[in-house]
């Protein structure tokens, strides 16, 4: 698999996600936001975490208008895959790759801690390596992760099975107490209608080695390697 990891001014997780992809066996190309085109034969575009443009205006708003994003949109429209993590998820929403908005956390605090996620479906290119209904232990680190959208969009996401991950407790129960930021229905990640774009606030790239405290993030990268 050939992955292109986009770096914007203020991105800071591009190295970690590139490492996670390489360890899973992917070929990784770094791409600068001012580039107009993606490397040839890019299978996967990654929008990494960070604080692009210092979160000025709205999180992800300015990066979403970067030169490279037209190529990323065209890539997604062809049905090719995009993985958007944390600030990348915010950028993807602002760019119209995914519906909704990541608003300020309901309690106003930046959260940086371990968090369980329920894997809502395991029949996608991003999650096939996970056990169905499993609660995985990953990291979250964000101040604007409160997923909101209008009622019709929420109904479509839920009805079409486009919720990828929900915040849950260690047993996999989605409860208000397990919701770290006020997201609607505990949403931590969503898919596009064709299941080729995944946006998620948590950082799977943080937990790929026992040395770092866990390996529950690995499944996502292994799933992508196994996908056609």
């Amino acid at each position, binding site marked *: 698999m050939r992955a292109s990891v986009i770096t914007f001014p203020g991105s800071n997780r591009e190295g970690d996600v590139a490492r996670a992809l390489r360890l899973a066996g992917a070929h990784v190309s770094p791409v600068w936001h001012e580039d107009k085109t993606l490397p040839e034969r890019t299978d996967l575009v990654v929008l990494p975490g960070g604080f692009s443009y210092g979160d000025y205006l709205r999180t992800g708003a*300015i990066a979403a*208008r970067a030169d490279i994003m037209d190529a990323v949109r065209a890539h997604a429209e062809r049905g090719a895959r995009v993985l958007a993590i944390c600030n990348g998820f915010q950028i993807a929403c*602002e760019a119209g790759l995914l519906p909704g908005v990541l*608003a300020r956390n*309901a309690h*106003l605090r930046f959260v940086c801690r371990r968090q369980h996620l329920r894997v809502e479906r395991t029949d996608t290119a991003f999650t096939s390596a996970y056990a169905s209904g499993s609660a995985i232990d990953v990291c979250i680190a964000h101040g604007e992760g*409160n997923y*909101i959208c209008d009622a019709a969009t929420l109904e479509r996401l839920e009805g079409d099975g486009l919720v990828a991950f929900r915040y849950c407790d260690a047993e996999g129960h989605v409860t208000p107490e397990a919701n770290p930021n006020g997201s609607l229905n505990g949403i931590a990640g969503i898919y596009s209608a064709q299941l080729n774009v995944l946006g998620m606030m948590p950082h799977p790239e943080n937990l790929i080695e026992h040395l770092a405290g866990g390996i529950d993030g690995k499944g996502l990268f292994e799933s992508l390697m196994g996908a056609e």
Partner: protein
Amino acid sequence: MKARVTVTLKTGVLDPQGKAIEGALASLGLAGVTSVRQGKVFDIELASTDQAEARANLTAACEKLLANTVIENYHIGLEA
């Protein structure tokens, strides 16, 4: 020509920052504040002297960047 664009959260969208400010005003003993909603103001200078053209440009600026119309409304004020 000068313009002032204001961007505000739509009714019903949770505004935790506005709520925190509301609470701070209450703690200062300022009576009678029943609600605070926080927004953004952009003071913009335009080369154009044509009102219609300026308004069209600013509308495009709001739709493309200044506001996220999923959760925000915008208002364009032009100075004569």
